[in-house]
């Protein structure tokens, strides 16, 4: 059992959820409420990580984060170490890969709020920011919970992208999913089995939690 890998995975999952939810909420809100040219294209772009093979996504991220790219070069001049094969690089990759898992549930939840309810919030004297806080956030809560659970669970299980962008550096980029693969390669089936079971339990708990939250928030009376 690779406790370091498990810890790293949990850290990556929490960092991804914490950073991604606010960004994805704004993007979801924009997609749900605004009518603009290119909206369909943007929605397709957000959904892209769902259908592309992780190795393909990982390959392009590797190119984008590499020393030869402006992003990679900029990061290295700021922080003194390369973005690829680092924990920061993993987080950034994880944010991009999880975009559809975070955006889509929140977008659906926001789009389900009747336009008249949002108008009513403004007629009650709520500023746009207050309307988000008092009306939109609470009403979108089931979607936000689903987004958080899906993002966290998916981050724990992500393999291809992590391997491409992060490699398998212990304590830095070797997540639990990578560690399982590593143990199987070394014919250490009991360790692999234990870690796989941990992921399985986490996934079941996450889904159960998501369903319960959604049901509780859906009960309005």
């Amino acid at each position, binding site marked *: 059992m690779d406790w370091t890998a498990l810890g790293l995975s949990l850290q990556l999952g929490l960092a991804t959820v914490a950073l991604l939810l606010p960004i994805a909420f704004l993007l979801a809100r924009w997609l749900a409420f605004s009518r603009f040219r290119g909206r369909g294209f943007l929605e397709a772009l957000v959904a892209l990580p769902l259908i592309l093979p992780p190795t393909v996504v990982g390959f392009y991220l590797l190119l984008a984060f590499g020393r030869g790219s402006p992003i990679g070069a900029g990061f290295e001049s700021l922080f003194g170490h390369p973005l690829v094969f680092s924990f920061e690089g993993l987080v950034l990759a994880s944010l991009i890969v999880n975009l559809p898992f975070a955006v889509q549930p929140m977008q659906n939840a926001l789009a389900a709020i009747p336009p008249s*309810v949002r108008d009513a919030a403004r007629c009650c004297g709520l500023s746009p920011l207050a309307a988000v806080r008092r009306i939109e956030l609470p009403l979108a809560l089931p979607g936000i919970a689903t987004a958080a659970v899906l993002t966290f669970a998916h981050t724990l299980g992500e393999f291809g992208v992590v391997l491409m962008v992060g490699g398998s550096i212990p304590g830095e980029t070797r997540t639990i999913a990578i560690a399982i693969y590593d143990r199987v390669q070394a014919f250490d089936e009991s360790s692999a089995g234990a870690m796989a079971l941990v992921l399985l339990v986490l996934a079941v708990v996450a889904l159960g939690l998501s369903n319960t939250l959604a049901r509780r928030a859906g009960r309005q009376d």
Partner: protein
Amino acid sequence: MEPGTGLQVRLRQATPFALDVAFEAPGGEITALFGPSGSGKTTVLRAIAGLQPMDTGRVACAGEVWTDTVAGIRAPTHRRPVGFVFQDYALFPHLTVREQLALSLGHRPTGERPARIDGLLDLVRLRGLGDRRPAALSGGQQQRAALARALARDPAVLLLDEPFAAVDWALRESLRRELVALQRSLSLTVVLVTHDFEDVAKLASHLVVLERGTVTASGTVEALTARNAVPGVTGWREPAVALDARIAAQESARQLTVIVAGGLRLEVPTIEAAVGAPVRIQLAAREVILASRRPEGLSLHNVIEAHVLAVEPAAHPALRLVHLQAGDTRFLSLVTADAARSLGLSPGTPVLALVKAVAVEAFA
């Protein structure tokens, strides 16, 4: 109309559909925006609230300018003191009635809010239901909660979008009564959007008729109905005049109430209201009989001395619509062309208008 308390509206847009509207809603009264669906009346209401941008326009209420595209003024909705009751009520599903009212009281000091909420709940008869969420309220209760939330804003103008469309007929009538009572006791300025002329005839004192984005008639409900000149209604609605009257006397021994509307004095079956109370009456043209001499031996309470203003063709070729005046009050009578001939009706002819007590529809 008191100067400076009403609402002045002038709006114009080219897309998505043409709209060119100007009207005034007097302070302390109910103005109806009446028209078929697609005539732009809801758009006008939304523009007043600042929910709908306009190409050009000016909206001023109680002396304050909310929109003036020429001067570059466009107050955001949350800074306009409007109370908006949406057609679907638009209650917040996650908040109790009390919480919804509290949300609308942001402009009042925190300490005042609980008492104000209690007052509003009493006002709309929802005391005891304040801790319920909308899903646990009936349709009529939801409508009253939406009304209370709009009133919580202390609005300079109350905007109602088809407020009775979602409730059944019986409930509609009692909600109308409550609205009228509330409007009178608080002297509210109200703009009411409706496609149901019953709302206009029973509630509104002023009427703006919208058709395809333009105003095709405007004025007092009394004047427009007396001239049988409400576009979109003439043709399918029986000619009937809506009059503002007052209770003049209660004759409880005879189970009658005497009401006076301008030059008309009418005895009608008892209306439960105090002497002096306002009452809206509707008098259908087909219920008004014309005579040249005072009749005897009839079960008749109301004989009104009037004179003919005009005789015009009615929807049916064998009928004539007679425009009448008693004192300064105008009303209508529908008679056969044959009767109009034999009575020699022409402008200026003095006639007696006979009205059965039960033919007067009173709304108090």
